[in-house]
């Protein structure tokens, strides 16, 4: 909301610059900033334009001679509206304009200019303006501009949702007064005793108070300049004197008013009622709205003429022929106005204020204030006035226990200072016993409902920054500790980032079409999505990681390795999940390795190797018995934790590859089920030998149908029983059937033997190796390749 600095001064006297006022208001919770201000210049004087000629070297510029009564100035001007005879603001050489812009002696297209004729924008008087500022023809010349110009600043006030009472000049002035210990002055109003003809009928308790007045004989016309100027500063367009008065009073006192043309009402009755279902109504914005039975309207006997508190009707407004007006000043229930405004998607300055609660007392003041301004400006006579109440207003009384203030703030504010702060907030005080103050809350402060609200008032006016914050104040400490990332996820993150993976972060949403592509089902649908992208909550991390992969591949990345930790939204609710996607070359080309042609891909075995490497003890890799639909059925495996399947990995089906030529490797694991059982297991330290080891390489042939895991298991058994085979590694796999025989495959192992206590002999090694070969042959028909 925009307010005028000078207008505020009519309510409360203060001696603060616009900037100082803004920081004071901000410090008490009313965030305020200067939009534009006057007087922020030096050396700008009033001067008369004596002559205007075309600039010899430029079509769009003119060369003017100006006088301040003593000296003449030759000035180049670019504005179209400059004419001889005008009195204008002249920034002389050395003048400084808002924003620190300094006027220097300069040549413009080879012609010397001894200053600048200013526009309102250049002077910081308006946010934008066209042409130079032309002053009144009777303006004295040769005097500082600020002396002849009413200098004002426009301030922007941002209120929090609870402070509807600050949405006016009076409201802001009350805040200033509270801090500066001054009581704001209300505008003087004349009240008259007039007849109460029964015109108004209030049929709904959504309207607790309705004040209506009929004023006849008004002359509708343009507003006086002071009023249209005041409205303009606050960003309100001037329409005619009657409408402007209702707006002016709203900006002044904060209470929205509405004026109807009495002759346009079908009968001389004004009815406040709820609309009937689907009742149509054309509002001032020209649109026709369909109302429902929860919405409150102002109606004549035939049809609604206004949506109560939201907007007037198109056909009942004031125009140049209006002679008799009906002036409304009412209180509508905030929740009702809010619901109506939401449902119709229609809001206004009026609904904005009613939603935040209008003040009981101010409704009456505003009604008289507007009536007074109407006789003064538009003439006319008040015929009748009615004040109908469907509820009785009761002031809120709250008991404040003085010791509670220091108990909550951690700092003692003296009782008399507390009382002073509350009084200047317009709160009436009464003693309620020892250290208890009974506070009677003014009608405009509907946000103060209980004791703690009063404590906030005391703290904010006293100043939050005046409450000390002792360094290192001791708090009772909780002992349990925990982390945002479960331990297993922390492990994954640090290991993978060290392996060149980047951590991704994706939205929690999916598009149904995307899910279908992967054969995924969704379980949680959004009822009110803003776009297709937000249709459902993601049931897997795959679709977004896949999109990330495609984005990076399209940017030319030949290697994409990403992981993400987040929730998926499955049939059994929110599940913490970890996933990784990998694609392309494992490493970038390197000149040192070029001749060796080392260029591995993230294929099934390499990707699987990474996963096996990051999985902690307790995990085994097994056959994937129920692979997800997106995996290649022959290239997938399961990660099992203590017999319980937790994750799956593998290569995506070729149909999901798009334009990509290499395999896409994906891994997803349910963290939710692991979190409670996984405790960062510690395996005992294993002794290792100080004696030299013996290495043996062997190759064996096996049936292709035999799972490698079975061979591995046999090797591990021999390691256990013989206790000298310490390590094995698979260094070659060979499957040339023309050499090996149909259906055969060959594996080459390097075996490392070591004894913890002494150096091994050849015989010992041979005997252990033979035991292994016998076992392989006997149990699995795996034979030594010769």
């Amino acid at each position, binding site marked *: 909301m925009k307010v005028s600095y000078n207008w505020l001064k009519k309510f409360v006297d203060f001696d603060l610059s616009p900037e100082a006022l803004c920081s004071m208001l*901000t*410090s*008490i*919770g009313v965030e305020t900033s200067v939009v534009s201000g006057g007087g922020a210049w030096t050396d700008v004087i009033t001067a008369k334009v004596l002559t205007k000629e075309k600039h010899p070297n430029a079509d769009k510029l003119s060369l003017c001679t100006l006088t301040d009564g003593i000296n003449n100035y030759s000035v180049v001007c670019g504005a179209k509206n400059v004419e001889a005879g005008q009195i204008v603001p002249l920034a002389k050489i050395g003048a400084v304009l808002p924003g620190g812009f300094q006027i220097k002696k300069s040549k413009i297209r080879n012609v010397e200019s001894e200053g600048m004729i200013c526009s309102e924008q250049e002077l910081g008087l308006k946010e934008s303006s066209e042409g130079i500022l032309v002053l009144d023809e009777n303006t004295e010349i040769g005097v500082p501009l600020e002396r002849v110009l009413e200098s004002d600043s426009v301030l922007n006030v941002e209120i*929090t*949702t609870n402070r509807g009472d600050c949405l006016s000049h009076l409201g802001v002035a009350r805040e200033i007064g509270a801090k500066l210990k001054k009581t704001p002055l209300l505008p003087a109003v004349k009240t008259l005793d007039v007849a109460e003809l029964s015109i108004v009928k209030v049929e709904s308790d959504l309207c607790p108070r309705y004040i209506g007045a009929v004023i006849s004989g008004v002359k509708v016309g343009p507003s006086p300049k002071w009023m249209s100027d005041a409205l303009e500063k606050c960003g309100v367009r001037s329409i005619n004197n009657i409408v402007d008065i209702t707006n002016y009073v709203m900006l002044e006192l904060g209470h929205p008013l509405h004026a109807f043309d009495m002759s346009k009402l079908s009968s001389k009755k004004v009815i406040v009622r709820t609309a009937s279902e689907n009742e149509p109504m054309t509002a001032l914005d020209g649109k026709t709205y369909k109302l429902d039975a929860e919405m409150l309207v102002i109606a004549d006997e035939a049809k609604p003429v206004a949506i109560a508190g939201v907007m007037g009707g198109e056909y009942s407004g004031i125009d140049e022929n209006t002679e008799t007006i009906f002036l409304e000043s009412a209180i509508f229930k*905030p*929740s009702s106005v*809010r619901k109506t405004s939401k449902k119709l998607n229609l809001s206004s300055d009026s609904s904005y204020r009613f939603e935040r609660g209008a003040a009981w007392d101010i409704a009456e003041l505003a009604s008289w204030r507007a009536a007074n301004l109407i006789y003064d400006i538009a003439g006319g006579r008040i015929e009748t006035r009615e004040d109908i109440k469907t509820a009785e207003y009761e002031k809120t009384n709250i008991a404040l226990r003085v010791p509670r203030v220091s*108990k*909550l*703030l*951690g700092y003692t504010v003296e009782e008399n200072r507390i009382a002073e702060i509350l009084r200047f907030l317009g709160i009436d005080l009464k003693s309620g016993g020892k250290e208890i103050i009974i506070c009677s809350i003014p009608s405009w402060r509907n*946000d103060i409902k*209980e004791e*703690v*609200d009063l*404590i*906030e008032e005391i703290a904010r006016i006293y100043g*939050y*920054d005046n*409450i000390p*914050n*002792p*360094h*290192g*104040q001791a*708090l*009772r*400490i*909780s002992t349990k500790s*925990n982390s945002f990332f479960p331990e297993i996820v922390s492990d994954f993150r640090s290991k*993978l*980032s060290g*392996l*060149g993976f*980047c*951590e991704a*972060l*994706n*939205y*929690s949403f999916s598009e149904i079409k995307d899910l279908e592509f992967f054969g995924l089902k969704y379980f*949680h*649908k959004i*009822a009110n*999505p803003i776009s297709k992208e937000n249709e459902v*909550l993601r049931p897997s991390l795959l679709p977004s990681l896949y999109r*990330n992969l495609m984005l990076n591949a399209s*940017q030319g990345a030949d290697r994409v*390795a*990403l992981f993400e930790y987040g*929730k998926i*939204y499955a049939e059994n*609710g*929110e599940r913490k999940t970890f996933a990784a996607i990998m694609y392309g070359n494992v*490493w970038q*080309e*390197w*000149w*040192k390795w070029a001749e060796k042609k080392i260029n591995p891909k993230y294929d099934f075995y390499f990707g699987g190797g990474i996963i096996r490497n990051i999985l902690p003890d307790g995990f085994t890799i097994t056959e994937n018995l129920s692979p997800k639909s997106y995996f290649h059925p022959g290239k997938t495996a399961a990660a099992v934790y203590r017999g319980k399947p937790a994750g799956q990995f593998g290569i995506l089906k070729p149909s999901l590859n798009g334009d990509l030529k290499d395999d896409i490797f994906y891994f997803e694991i349910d963290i939710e089920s692991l979190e409670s059982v996984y405790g960062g297991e510690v395996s005992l330290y294993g002794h290792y030998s100080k004696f030299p080891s013996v290495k043996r390489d062997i190759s064996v042939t096996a049936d292709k149908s035999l799972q490698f895991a079975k061979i591995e298991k046999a090797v591990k058994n021999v390691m256990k029983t013989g206790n000298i085979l310490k390590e094995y590694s698979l260094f070659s796999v060979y499957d040339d059937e023309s050499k090996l025989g149909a259906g055969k495959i060959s594996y080459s192992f390097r075996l490392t033997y070591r004894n913890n206590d002494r150096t091994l002999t050849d015989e010992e090694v041979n005997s252990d190796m033979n035991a292994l070969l016998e076992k392989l042959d006997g149990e699995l028909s795996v034979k030594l390749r010769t």
Partner: protein
Amino acid sequence: MNNIDQIISEALQKINNSDPGALELLKTEYFGKNGVITQILKSLSQYPADEKKKIGADANRAKNAIETAIEQKKELLKKAVLDEKMAKEKEDFSQIFYFPFSKGGIHPVLKTIEDISSVFKSLGFVVAEGPEIETDWYNFEALNIPSDHPARDTQDTFYLEGMKNLLRTHTSPGQIHVMEKQKPPVRVIVPGRVYRNEASDASHSSTFHQIEGLAVDENITFADLKSVLAEFIHKFFGPDLDIRFRPSHFQFTEPSAEMDMQCFFCKGKGCRVCKNSGWIETLGCGMVHPNVLKAVKCDPEKYSGFAFGMGVERITMLKYGIDDIRLFYENDLRFLKQF
């Protein structure tokens, strides 16, 4: 006597001018069968006992000096050879280092959550979590936000089909979950995802992260709130930054405040980061509203507490000078690799 000193000085001079081959010859010259020193030692028997002792000592002195000098010179020559070799082996360090593995990275938003969490953990807070799919009660009602309140306007909500559940619009429902389970003293922070049903632009995202903080106990005061948050700012952004508290409004706290910190970039002088104000709006906070305590059956007469909440993306953007929130969710490797 003179003779010995002269032998030593001559020898040292020869050693000094020798190459490795000449050093070997010198060894023979002095210590070989007919070597100078060998001859002296051999001739000792001709001298009377007292002279023998003296000449013997002199000869040994000469032997030690010359041997040591030869060894030192040998070392020196060896080193010179190596130095010369290394000088020829100079590699080009200027540009051809190249690491064949790509650079990995931790997402900046999650890194900020970890960093902030560790500061609060050091201040005695525990990290807790809450569900993202919430009910109206947890997200609004229990936090003193009734259904017709204008405060709901600022938090456009995603509802799930059936309208029974919604996606939490802030991490504040975490306060309710924690207090339902735990009696005071409570000190928790609740980091997590939150959702707003609004169109995305450079500074708005339908998904983002917040960190909520809560401390409830007997005698918790506004001064405690100020000191804990000051401690946080000083540990996270820098030890000398000023902070200020401005009155504000949140339905679930009373009194409520916005906390600003002095711009960590320009130290309050005014710059692009703080839009020339010298201050950066950092978080919202306040004393837990009695209605919130009542909602979890905690007696507001006995207990009080403070709560605060901050936007993680916002803080991350400030910290790294990122100007578009959408970059966090695009996952372009050229972005991710920078962290």
